[in-house]
């Protein structure tokens, strides 16, 4: 298990971690954030900038890479909030560094809309091209769509962690890669996602296990991480990915959770979809500690892989429909399960997802959000021997 020991900080501990990473050390920071309507990204960036200025961090170079997206349908209010957000992010960051922007999606030269999977691959490659020369990479997932931050996280990890069999490789040549999350469960539950895409989106690097003909006869184990108001997406994915009735479905529910009944409530919401699923298949994962959730999921995947090897192998699919922290946990587990050399070893794991094209939210609710900041330090000096 790569992150047997891990660095995870919440609330005020985050600032202590930043101090320990940046004080007395010359650094070059690449800060990646989303150019979306979610104002949480502003509060996180503001807190980081304040820490930089108050802590007197010696930052030689700082770049804010804003990732924009096309193909989403937003109300006019949310569109203007997006514009306002972008301007605010520029303003917040200009005192410590430069701002660059990239946009995912759009249309190809032939006029066809670029498919989400291709857009993600292109976007991830663009971001990876920016990475060299930075000593610190910060990925703020607060206003990034799930598929984007999963792609960026696993992509950046692939380029930093070259040998997954060796825990020491998490040192990543001293490059600190941390993920910032501003979690506000109340706001998340108020952002409604509609109009799921007709195409199955695949996180770059995780396509083979879904599509390869050679594995189609293997048993399928699907780990959907359940979240509120996602039954439509769940069904859509089950149809698009052609999940057979005889597939082993292992729903992952948040427990322990702030709301002790949350797991039960989710089971009630998904009662129709999970009618045939035996209760013994349900996995419980920590709602607010992604590394614990990662351990649960990784352990389950490894056990299934081992047990089903007698049949030649198995297909492992993970679909995160839950909170940001749990989605990150899924990303970490999948990253670890993915074989390093696909041309010689079996396919590992796939992350099928149906991305909504329309988000609906009350602007007042978005503006009044009071998020809780967390950080996951995934690589860098903390993991050196």
């Amino acid at each position, binding site marked *: 298990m790569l992150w047997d020991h891990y660095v995870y900080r919440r609330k005020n501990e985050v600032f202590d971690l930043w101090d320990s990473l940046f004080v007395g050390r010359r650094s070059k920071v690449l800060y990646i954030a989303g150019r979306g309507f979610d104002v949480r990204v502003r509060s996180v960036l503001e807190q980081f900038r304040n820490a930089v200025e108050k802590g007197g961090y010696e930052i030689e170079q700082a770049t804010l890479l804003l990732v924009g997206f096309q193909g989403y349908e937003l109300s006019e209010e949310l569109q203007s909030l997006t514009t306002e957000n972008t301007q605010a992010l520029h303003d917040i960051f200009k005192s410590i560094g430069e701002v660059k922007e990239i946009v995912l999606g759009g249309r190809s030269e032939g006029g066809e809309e670029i*498919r989400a999977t291709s857009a993600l691959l292109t976007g*991830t490659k663009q971001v*990876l091209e920016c990475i060299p020369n930075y000593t610190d990479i910060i990925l703020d997932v607060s206003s990034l769509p799930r598929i984007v931050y999963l792609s960026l996280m696993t992509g950046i990890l692939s380029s930093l962690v070259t040998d997954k069999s060796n825990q020491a490789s998490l040192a990543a040549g001293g490059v600190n890669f941390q993920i910032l999350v501003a979690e506000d469960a109340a706001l998340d539950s108020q952002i409604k996602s*509609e109009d799921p895409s*007709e195409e199955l989106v695949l996180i770059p*690097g995780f396509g083979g296990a879904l599509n390869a*003909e050679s594995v189609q006869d293997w048993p399928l184990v699907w780990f959907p991480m359940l979240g509120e108001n996602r039954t439509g997406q769940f069904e*859509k994915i089950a149809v698009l990915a052609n999940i057979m009735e*005889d597939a082993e479905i292992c729903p992952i529910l948040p427990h322990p959770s702030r709301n002790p009944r949350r797991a039960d409530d989710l089971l009630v919401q998904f009662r129709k979809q999970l009618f045939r699923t035996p209760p013994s298949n349900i996995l419980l994962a920590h709602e607010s500690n992604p590394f614990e959730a990662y351990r649960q999921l990784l352990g389950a995947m490894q056990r299934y892989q081992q047990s089903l090897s007698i049949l030649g192998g198995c297909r492992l699919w993970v679909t995160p429909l839950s909170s940001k922290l749990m989605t990150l946990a899924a990303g970490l587990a999948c990253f670890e399960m993915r074989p390093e050399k696909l041309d010689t070893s079996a*396919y590992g794991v796939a992350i099928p997802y149906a991305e909504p094209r329309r988000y609906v939210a009350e602007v007042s609710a978005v503006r009044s959000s009071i998020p809780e900041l967390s950080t996951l330090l995934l690589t860098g000096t903390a993991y050196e021997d």
Partner: protein
Amino acid sequence: MSERTTSDNEFVRLFSPKILERLPDDVFNSGLHVFRSPPGGGKTTLLRVFTPAALRSFWHAKKSDAMEDAYHRLVELGIIDETEGPKTLGVLLSCASGYADLPSGANFADQGLFRALLNCRIVLRALRNLATLYGITPQDSLAGISLDYDETCRDLKMIPLLKNAAELTVWAEQAERSVYAHLDAIVAPKDGVLPSHVRFEGVLWLQGVRFLKDGKPIAERRMLMIDDLHKLRRPQRQLLAVEITELRPSMPVWLAERSIALGEQLLSQGARSGRDLHAVDLINEIWGSGKGSQQFLAYAQNILDRRMDRQSAIPSGTFAQHLRSDILPNEVSEQVQRGIARFNDQSDRFRSNPQYAEWFGRAEQISAKPSLNALRELYKIQIQIARQERKRQMTFELAPLPTAELDERGSSKEDNAADIFMHEDLKIPYYFGIERLCTLATNNVEELLGLAAALYEGLKAKQVLRREAVLSPIEQEKYLVEAAKHKRSFIPKSHTEGTRAQQLIDGIASYCRERTFLPNAPYAPGVTGVRLTKGVIDALEDGRSYGDSGRILHRVLCECVAENLFTTKESASSNSRESGLVFNLNRTLCALNGLPLGYGGWQDVDIEDMIGWMQRGPSFSRKRLLEID
């Protein structure tokens, strides 16, 4: 029912042979055959029948009464041999397996990668299916199958002409793996070269290879079936259709795709119908018209009955047995009284008109014996009065109208209009009985099962309460309308353009209601579709005439047709009007909006109305429906 989500044995048990009976024989001839239907229309079910696992299940269950028909049809078609078992090697591949995510470009390398992936998958699936066909596990036994090739295979360049099936399986697996090693690599390998094939050799290989087991040829008859063609990108679809057509396959090659409205049809993309390929519309050609719709009824009932046999929660029998098809007098006596009173009230102002004296005389006779039929007659009289009133504005006749005229003017359309008016006014059930259930399914098995499931839940509930497991018309309508509500509310959650589609449907439904519930029922039994003229359709396809809104409407219409929310029918030109395309509402959504279920009633609408509905939903009229001016 599909198709791929149930086990093979379950699939065979639930499969209704009716679709095989309706399938034209020539689809088994060599060449390219394209099957089209909306989702849930039966494409994948049909294709799956010819896969080895399903054929073996049919063969093993040949003595079962439930499967006898399907088995005999397969024997008749030469797919299964009565003594030796399945003889046909069906190779089914889905285009949903990531082809659309291959690098997109019209360049040779990108096309070559698409061909390479399809070729190695044809080889791999054929060899695995061969093992399934003969009931042997691939790992153990493929080594015992040797391969020989006919002359057509001699010039294969990319697929190696290996002599052993196991070795060729290893080649195909490795070829596929090397494709994904490249595709899944975020940082491209330095030494890697992407596989690239110059043609779809898999087709030539499949028709030219000879499989030998103990020196004897096996699986000599082949079929290649490629499903979900709509999942490919447009250039990929075009490439596949054109190049496979050019190969002039000597075995049947079946392509299945969703119905696509407004252009982008495969046929228009380089292949000519008739000589080059044969298109089969599973809905319109097989179930759509004339006897076809009766056949769908039989097919649908057969499917439901097979499922009834597989459950034990309620007493077995046909599904229809559990749906009461007539309304009992005591169930609607209150509505009948109310309806008569309403007739008297609404027609009071016409009583003094000598023209209607005989008609009112008849109405009084009818009212004396209140019943559902009597009420229907009163509604028909009311419709005729409304029609006469409209006429009277143009003529000036005072002679009493004879009652015989009422009979002459009446037809089944007026009966149906009266029924839907009674439903609208008095909530007398309209959506009940097995025939209407099947009609509500819009010739779509998946929708049928969804609706039947809602009724089945109701039956189970009655069983739990120890009541007779038969649903009354009122109960049936309650469950069906509930299912329709659920379908509508799920549109934004399950379709890419769902929100706009929902608004457009609501707008069209509202318009149809306005036109249906005119007191004189001018389009009896009602309006359930709208028509755009060919000129407008061409302009929409062109994409330039109506700006962004037009482009979005085009996209929404395409998706609605592809998802069976609308069914389309071309309307021919006449002296007074241009030809066009009718968009009929999905019948389940008709039930939600209280509309009749017959086809035929449509109205021409402007493109501006359609765009307005799509953007804002319906604009409700303040006028109460069914009120005579």
